[in-house]
């Protein structure tokens, strides 16, 4: 609790959190939606924002606001699955490879590099095409998770490598501390900011990737997400027909979401960085 109170003193955290909370509330509002997200022609089409439809309606006869609540919910689900699952893999691989080194490191990093060096996007597109019929939210999330860990595993590993070079590792190892305690007590605090920032980056990447896949038509387009909402707006030429309320909704939501995440991550990583904390809290040296 103290940590949270501390974090809230940073305006970036506070603002980021408020935006994020706002989006989560939006996502939850979807459960109260008076409309079916998939059905069309439920409301008059192409109407600008009004009291009845606060963000207007689209060319498919859907209420843009309520569609957006579904879109943000589904995109968050995809991104969280992708982010969390890939984080677990990345942390495990990064820590083990970085700390153990040797053959295991080489094997793991070979694997990660293999994933990275193959034009990932191409494989992603091919697999997405293969699975298109079954590209549900969970599957999309898992697919992205599968492709999203390699990069960060490498980053985390290099951080561990550099930590291993530091004096406290030698001291700690010499003083007979166990590996687990070393990893958890000494490494985790140092890598947490990195993990958090990779998580945020990964979520941003997942959301961006979902949008790319949707624009290429490689997900199930009838399930509203930020990407498919955008794709429909593009298909129906919302931009050039002047239906700004339709096309800007997913774009603005994406920007809001990623800005909020970015602020949260920057703030959290500053808080978690031990050196920074010294500066922030005072002269406890």
């Amino acid at each position, binding site marked *: 609790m103290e940590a949270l109170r501390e974090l809230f*003193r940073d305006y970036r955290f*506070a603002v980021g959190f408020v935006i994020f909370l706002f989006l989560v509330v939006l996502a939850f509002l979807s459960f109260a939606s008076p409309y079916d997200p998939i059905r069309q022609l439920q409301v008059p089409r192409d109407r600008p924002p009004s009291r009845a439809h606060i963000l207007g309606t689209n060319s498919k006869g859907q209420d843009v606001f309520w569609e957006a609540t579904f879109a943000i919910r589904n995109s968050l689900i995809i991104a969280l699955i992708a982010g969390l699952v890939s984080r677990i893999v990345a942390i495990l691989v990064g820590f083990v490879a970085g700390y153990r080194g040797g053959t295991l490191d080489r094997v793991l990093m070979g694997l990660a590099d293999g994933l990275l060096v193959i034009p990932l996007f191409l494989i992603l597109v091919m697999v997405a095409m293969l699975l298109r019929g079954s590209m549900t939210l969970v599957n999309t999330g898992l697919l992205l998770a599968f492709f999203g860990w390699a990069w960060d595993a490498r980053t985390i590993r290099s951080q561990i490598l550099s930590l291993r070079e530091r*004096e406290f590792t030698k001291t700690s190892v010499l003083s007979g501390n166990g590996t687990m305690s070393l990893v958890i007590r000494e490494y985790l605090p140092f890598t947490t900011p990195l993990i958090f920032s990779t998580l945020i980056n990964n979520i941003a990447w997942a959301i961006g990737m979902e949008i790319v896949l949707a624009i290429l038509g490689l997900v199930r387009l009838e399930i509203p997400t930020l990407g498919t909402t955008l794709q429909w707006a593009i298909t129906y030429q919302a931009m050039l027909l002047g239906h700004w309320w339709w096309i800007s909704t997913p774009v603005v939501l994406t920007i809001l979401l990623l800005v909020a995440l970015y602020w949260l991550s920057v703030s959290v990583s500053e808080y978690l960085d031990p050196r920074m904390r010294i*500066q922030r809290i005072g002269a406890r*040296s």
Partner: protein
Amino acid sequence: MLPVIRAEDLQAFYVLETLRGKKVVRAVNGVSLVIPENTVYGLAGESGCGKTTLLKVLLGNLEPPLRHFGGRVLYRVDGEYLDALALPEGKRQKLRWTYISYIPQGSMSVFNPVAKLRTTFMDFLESHVSGKMRQELLRHAEEHLERLGLSPKILEAYPHQLSGGMRQRVAIALATLLNPRVILADEPTTALDVVAQRAVLQLLSDIQRKLRNTIVLVTHDMGIHATVTTRMAIMYAGRIVEEGWTQDIFTTPLHPYTQYLIRSLPRIGDKRLRESAPGSPPSLAQLPPGCPFHPRCPLAFERCREEVPELEEVGEQKVACFLRRASHVVTS
């Protein structure tokens, strides 16, 4: 005995701005000190009592969130007293390394890891010495190292290629490159093994003897103070609680806190468990009323909880404790 640095009632706090107002960490809370020429001056105290911050203030390195709230720091340059905190930044930068220099805590990592040591030395030299050719400056650095008994070849090395002790000695060499009158050394031996510690301390003493300048040696290790320093001050919760000749302090420690520090030293043949003061130093953001040490002091009485004792002279020493007023008897 002329002072090189005089601090007068220094106050410097960390001010943390948060959404719910300010939080003030009183790291240096009314410190007055006179650091004389040609000595090794010790500064002791547990972690978190403001030693490092005091050094920063003495160096004139006040960057947010650390802010100056009162008092002066006087340097004696060419017989004149200069108020270091009132000097323009440019002027202050000029005095660094020529008048006062600094070996930071954890100075193992003071070198740019991707540059050869020569580059780092040159960076410092070129910033302070004007009108000389690179070659001359390099020769100066080499000569300096030789004077300190280090091989000039290490200039061609990268920092990670040196051992910890060696790196520390190079750091000292870097700090003394321009023969400053005062060197502030913050825990220079903390991370080293005993052999390396001795080498570093030896080097510091040598430098002091050769240059006849002042080294302010900050360490929590009372053993080092006992062997190296001539005068010393004990710091607690942002204040100086005792000051005097090192020998005097070790023979007749006046402040109960000093007594704890000395008693915590291991002695040869002493099988008793080492004692230390119960508890830990108070948070500098929430100081207790009265004497900041009273919550840990076995001898505390009514007055200690209400008033803050001033630093007063008791013989050759100075102490901030009501028990040591002239009317009280020394009992230890």
